[in-house]
């Protein structure tokens, strides 16, 4: 089952396209990082997935074909928006009660236990909570709905390092113990690198990279060698991005299963997720999509140098 499936999805605000021709299938059981620079279209994509906005073109479905935003979809999805908006004048207990009233499934015991662990009194009003507490309460409300898919929009943006750690620990627990699929967006990859096992890279309204982190890392290498030979090899390798320093060049290369022998004088090493992401973001024309129609090897949008 795909928790999010988009087909030629587009969203236009006025005359600008926030997203265009996005095709994506995120399988269940992953903690997916939706990464991209500010304004790339991450929030738009998440809003479409949770049904807050409708596509201008194409389709998007969730949880195995349920129309995004339909009642069936909302039963299985929990969403925490950016800055975790809560009703400021409601107490934690009121917020639990409200969420319980608005959903067909709500685990009151879990929610109260979580707030107890966090040390948030039930009588505490949302406006009196710290940013970290508000984020935790919003997350608790979402998880107590026992969703199959948890969608988080920039959940860590306004949290201090300690609160980030705690927040992600909760998300990880839900993913590992309850098997909740998670999609979370961030413009800072570093904080997701340790936890995400599926990566979707969005830039300029396009989905540039999508795939399991393991596969992506296995399929890319960093080759370092003399600058004078780079032109020669660049032609036979799938070079995503090239950077040079003095007489050395570094080529981020996609191997796609075909093992190229490392020529003498060159050195190959695995890439980190951050290197990979940055390389693709720098080359907005490059892409790595598991498109069943074309396959990885024949991706025509590859930029080679």
């Amino acid at each position, binding site marked *: 089952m795909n928790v999010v499936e988009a087909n030629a999805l587009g969203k236009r605000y006025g005359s600008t396209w926030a997203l265009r021709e996005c095709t994506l299938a995120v399988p*269940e059981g992953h903690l997916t990082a939706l990464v991209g620079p500010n304004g790339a279209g991450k929030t738009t994509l998440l809003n479409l997935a949770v049904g807050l*906005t409708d596509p201008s073109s194409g389709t998007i479905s969730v949880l195995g074909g349920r129309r995004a935003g339909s009642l069936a979809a*909302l039963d299985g999805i929990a969403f925490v928006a950016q800055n975790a908006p809560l009703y400021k004048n409601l107490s934690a207990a009121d917020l639990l009660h*409200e969420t319980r009233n608005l959903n067909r499934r709500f685990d009151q015991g879990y929610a109260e236990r979580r707030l107890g662990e966090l040390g948030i009194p039930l009588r505490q009003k949302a406006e009196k909570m710290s940013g970290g507490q508000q984020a935790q309460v919003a997350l608790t409300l979402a998880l107590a709905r026992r969703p199959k898919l948890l969608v988080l929009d920039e959940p860590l943006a306004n949290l201090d390092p300690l609160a980030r750690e705690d927040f992600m620990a909760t998300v990880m627990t839900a993913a590992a113990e309850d*098997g909740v699929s998670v999609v979370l967006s961030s413009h800072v990859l570093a904080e997701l690198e340790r936890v995400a096992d599926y990566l979707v890279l969005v830039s300029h309204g396009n989905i540039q990279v999508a795939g399991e982190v*393991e596969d992506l890392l296995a399929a890319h290498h960093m080759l370092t060698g003399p600058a004078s030979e780079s032109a020669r090899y660049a032609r036979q390798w799938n070079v995503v991005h090239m950077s040079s320093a003095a007489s050395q060049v570094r080529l981020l290369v996609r191997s796609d299963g075909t093992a190229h022998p490392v020529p003498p004088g060159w050195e190959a090493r695995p890439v980190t997720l951050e290197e990979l992401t940055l390389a693709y973001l720098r080359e907005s024309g490059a892409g790595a999509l598991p498109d069943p129609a074309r396959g990885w090897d024949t991706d025509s949008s590859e930029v080679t140098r």
Partner: protein
Amino acid sequence: MTAVTVPVRSANDASLRPLPWRRMAWVSWRHHRVALGGVVVFLGALAVWLWIAGLQLHHAYAAAAACHPSSSAACQNLINAFGSTNVILKGGFVLQPLPALIGAFVGAPMLAREIETGTFRYAWTQGFGRRRWTVAKLVLVGVAVAAIAGAFSVLVSWYYQPYLASGNGTVFSSPSPLSPGLFELRGVAFGAWTLVAFAMGALVGMLTRRIVPAIVATLAAYAGLALLAGNVLRQHYVTPLVAKGSNLPGAAWITSEWWTKGGKFAFGGRPPVHLLQQLCPASFVPGPGGGIAVRGAFSPTTCLVQHGYTQWSDYQPASHFWPFQWIEGGWLLGLSVLLIAVTVWLVRRRVA
């Protein structure tokens, strides 16, 4: 990095609880109890004032009505005392803005606050669904404010009773129950106007997406509709009756007047001054500053009648009060339903 391999919990959708509409009752109450409480306190304070003032008015009326003979000086004093009791409330205009205020301060923030604070992203992604959420909230709170206003208007009706009752005798000149200012405060109209103001507020809040502009726009839109209804629409609910001369029943609401001479239309509305000067020159003297002044107790009507003019009036008799109330209540209810439906449609359509 390893993939999370724990299988997804086998959630059985059949075990889900149903989501009846009444779940929204608690939600609506929790979110809007301060606003509803504010309306109750505000109208309650006004009600206490109206009640005290009303007792005075009723006493003054009873004293004046019981006085015999009515032409005596003592009775004239009592009649004058009744006429000058609570002058501020007399025409009903002080109470006219109440529905608009309720609409602006309760209706306008209904959706504008959710959008302004971003909480709609929470509310509209819950399992209840945003369309049902909006319908339930607007209907519950709208009916609540209309009911509170309706209860208040019962007291208002009682307050204005003496003015209208006085029309049965010949002692006092009395207003028509249909006259603008009084009509909207009594019967079903006050509750209906409050409901329509609330629905306007909700829609405007959804359009502006911010509270303060929504409040201002709601007040403006309400004023426009109220003026349109009072000055243009209401007189056409039922075809008016026509009266010849001054042969009008008491407490009639005159909607237009015109004059004829020799069976031909002469002029409509108020008699032009130059015509009166021409017909009855003796009654006019040069006034200060080059103008003209009227000599003594000049009656334009008498002057015109003496010269063969006939007065005609379109009017609505006081007995049309309840038909008019139901007509006005009916179209306001229909308009409220329409406004709420448009708001719900906008909530579904334009978002995020």
